């Protein structure tokens, strides 16, 4: 039967290069890394934009997450539904984002690593802070591009009235590169922005007067400030993060109380790890461990046997369990369509440049509008003057 068809050839090497490059670059530029201006990955931006379009404002009732996910999938983001829902959930978690961008109703998971409820159960609306990211979107402040099937338009970046990249941080694994930006304190970063507006040549040391370091939503303590400074200067470095604990004494008994755990540490795994170590007697002197966390916050209680010293046990916990972790800071974000490793100063600078442009465009837009209005009024005046 041998079907005759023209024999097109493709070289394995060329095919590999071409396919791999388009995959790698797409993941880098438009999937895994945040934009330096609004600190959002495309999927996050699309979720926020779709939610404003749906009118899910902070003062309106919640709507089912499934509706938002469907809206994002159908209009803007032609990928898997779980990817969209996971991104949506993360933006609502107060232990993942310093200032959640989405106000969630229902189970959105916990520090124990419990999964969120399915999207047919949970409900969402925009958090008040998101308004600040989206504000002025309708005043020609940013560019819009066609969506995947050319039927709608979507913003390439949000106006972003606060420096979201630094405030909420980001983490993402692209191809050949990753990003891991810790969250920061809103007031501190805002002060740093103002300082840079007043003094564009501000040095990293001077910025660090305002920004003391990351501000994790889960609390904790950062050791070694020298490494931190280096990380902010070069955009890359490791810092050591420790949970917050105290020692309670009662009837000559001691117990260690852990009230804050390091960022992105799963509380259940931490407790399991401690229990394992106690069980294997790698750490001696732990009598029991209880998780007394409730709606007021985290509280892990470790009962210490009489003859042992709590401080020593605590040091062993730091060494052998995720009660102390390293956080590898990589300030990598997309600048002008290319990934760039940023220093703290550059991150602020790019943000300020973006704001400047937004303000200029908004002003021009408003002026334009007023001029048109003036033109009509001018006309009306003339018309009126000739009525008689």
């Amino acid at each position, binding site marked *: 039967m041998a079907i005759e068809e023209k024999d097109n*050839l493709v070289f*394995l*090497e060329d095919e590999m290069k071409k396919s*791999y490059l388009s*995959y*790698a*670059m*797409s993941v880098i530029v438009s999937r895994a890394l945040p934009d330096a201006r609004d600190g959002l990955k495309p999927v996050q931006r699309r979720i926020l934009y779709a939610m404003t379009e749906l009118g899910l404002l902070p003062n309106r009732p919640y709507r089912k997450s499934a509706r938002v996910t469907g809206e994002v999938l159908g209009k803007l983001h032609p990928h898997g539904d779980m990817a969209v829902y996971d991104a949506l959930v993360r933006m609502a978690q107060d232990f993942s984002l310093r200032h959640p961008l989405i106000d969630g109703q229902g189970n959105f998971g916990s520090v124990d690593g419990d999964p969120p409820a399915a999207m047919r159960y949970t409900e969402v609306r925009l958090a008040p802070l998101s308004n600040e990211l989206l504000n002025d979107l309708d005043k020609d402040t940013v560019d819009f*591009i066609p969506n995947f099937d050319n039927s709608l338009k979507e913003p390439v970046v949000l106006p972003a009235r606060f420096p979201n990249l630094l405030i909420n941080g980001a983490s993402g694994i692209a191809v050949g590169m990753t990003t891991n930006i810790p969250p920061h304190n809103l007031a501190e970063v805002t002060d740093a922005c103002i300082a840079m507006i007043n003094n564009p040549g501000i040095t990293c040391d001077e910025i660090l007067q305002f920004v003391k370091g990351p501000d994790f939503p889960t609390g904790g303590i950062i050791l070694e400030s020298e490494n931190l400074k280096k990380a902010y200067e070069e955009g890359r470095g490791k810092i050591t993060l420790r949970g917050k604990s105290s020692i309670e004494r009662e009837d000559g008994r001691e117990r260690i109380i852990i009230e804050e755990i390091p960022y992105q540490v799963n509380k259940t795994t931490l407790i399991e790890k401690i229990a394992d170590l106690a069980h294997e007697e790698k750490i001696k002197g732990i009598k029991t461990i209880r998780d007394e966390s409730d709606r007021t916050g985290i509280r892990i209680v470790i009962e210490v046997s009489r003859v042992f010293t709590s401080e020593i046990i605590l040091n062993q916990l730091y060494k052998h369990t995720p009660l102390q972790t390293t956080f590898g800071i990589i300030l990598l974000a997309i600048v002008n369509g290319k990934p760039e490793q940023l220093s703290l100063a550059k991150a602020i600078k790019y943000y300020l440049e973006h704001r400047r442009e937004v303000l200029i465009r908004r002003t021009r837009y408003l002026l334009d509008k007023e001029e048109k209005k003036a033109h009509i009024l001018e006309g009306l005046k003339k018309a009126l003057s000739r009525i008689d």
Partner: protein
Amino acid sequence: MANEYKAEQIKVLKDLEAVKRRPGMYVGSTGPRGLHHLVHEVVDNSIDEVLAGYCNEIKVIIHSDNKVTVSDNGRGIPVDEHPDYKKSALELVMTVLHAGGKFDNKTYRVAGGLHGVGVSVVNALSSYLEATIYRDGKIWRQTYSRGKPTSPVEIVGDIDEGKTGTKITFAPDGEVFESIEFEYDRVARRLRELAFLNAGVSIEIKDERFAREEKFKYEGGIVEFVKHLNKSREVVFPDPIYLQGEKGDVQAEVAIQYNQSFILDIFAFVNDINTQEGGTHLSGFKAALTRAINDYAKRTENKESILMGEDIREGLTAIINIKMPDPQFEGQTKTRLGNSEVRGIIDSIVYEGLTRYFEENPSTAKVILQKTISASRVRLAAQKARELTRKKEALGGGSMPGKLAACSEDDPEKNEIYIVEGDSAGGSAKQGRDRKFQAILPIKGKIINVEKSHLVKVLSNTEIKAIIAAVGTGIKEEFNILRLRYHKVILMSDADVDGAHIRTLLLTFLYRYMPDLIKQGHVYIAQPPLYKVTNKNKECFLYSDAELNRLREKLKDDKIDVQRYKGLGEMNPEQLWKATMDPQTRTSYRVTIEDAIEANELFSMLMGKDVEPRRKFIEEHATEAELDI
């Protein structure tokens, strides 16, 4: 070497017109491959001078107008008159096919451009060519156009008596080649390879278009070649083993190093030609390596060894470099060495050399032994696992994966299997196919990256197991092309970037586990359409943005309806059949390997464990990527 290299040594065999009529036959194709072959041919001429021992410097310049200059400091092509033809030897070499010194065994002991088509072919396929010869204290020049001389052989200047060389500048014929744009990387790669294979020769490349230049000179020769191949891998011992020997006219050298991957890389060169299909030298090397290591194991471990060839070759990187007169090439692409005497020569050089090396370097010998013994353990474990799955499948009745939708025809030659991304596309394909000869195997999501995972883990992966069972040939050493159940293995993934990623993962698996499937041309890539355009009740499928733009221009005023396909699942079965599966109308590409060494490097770089080389590659080529937002 007292033989004179003068006009008498040039023999003429054939006419040049044929080249212009069928360029593909002489340079491979009229695409980029053929274009770059021109440079190779000219450089090979210079390399012949290197092999003869008269040249140690070669320079290649890509000019801004895509002309290329190749110059060397060899003896220079003879310019005196040929006694039989009454023409300058230079003109004969440049204008007559199969004219060259290489057919006279005395002048060149060994030579690479063995078919001797050489530079005359380049001349025939160049709109302009200028040959400058430095010889006997004079500078000679002749110019040509499309193989015909446009000037006589003239003396255009004087030069120091001792200085000799050849300089050839040519502009490829734009009417012959699809594109005359040279790729720097492609040229540089071959030059680097030649520099590795000819230790001590300096080869420079300069690209005037992008102001790039590099100089390749490797005193270490193939030892540095092996290091280069292993640069993105973790090696077992730092310095490659180097063995070398000479018997009769055959010179052979071998460099060996082990790395921690599970990959085997042996490249064998004869007179600088990569013998991709192997041959006597390769089988001699493999046999000797296995014997030498087994004997050493017997001596030191004092027990009967059971190390198989595949254990010994796991993680092996080796270069075999042979220089010999009159190599006989066989096989489909004329890249299998047939000279049977070479087997014995290599065998004894490698066996004796390795045995001595092991005695002198017991610590290196020990790590090699450990590595091969652990490989054999893993192999036995994997074998057991495989046998176990086989038994299980036997019990379950039939060894075919449940998801495979088989075809009804029995003859593998007529049959095709589509490996399809995702169950949703698999459903469309199943309904849209011709069930007589088309089988469908849906693969879920992104399959495991075999470059980063060990054999045992790879073989326990459901998707991989399904592919292996469906294809039927077995893998690695057990591969048997006669058991192939489908002569066309077609990879069909979505026309988006994730589809591209899945394609690379599948190709990596096939290349590492069933390389012969690709080498023998059984692997195809289906091209699903990007757009469906409807205009006045007529439908057509478009495969690229360029096609869409062309159509838009053609139908300027007509209203057209464009649907962008993001996934195969978006298509109706009937559409899928028409656009990608019907042999009459579909577009598919057969995958071939152009350069085994580059392919091999690419796979380790793109898919391997080491991130840094990958990042560098992405940064360098970022602008070439087609983005999908």
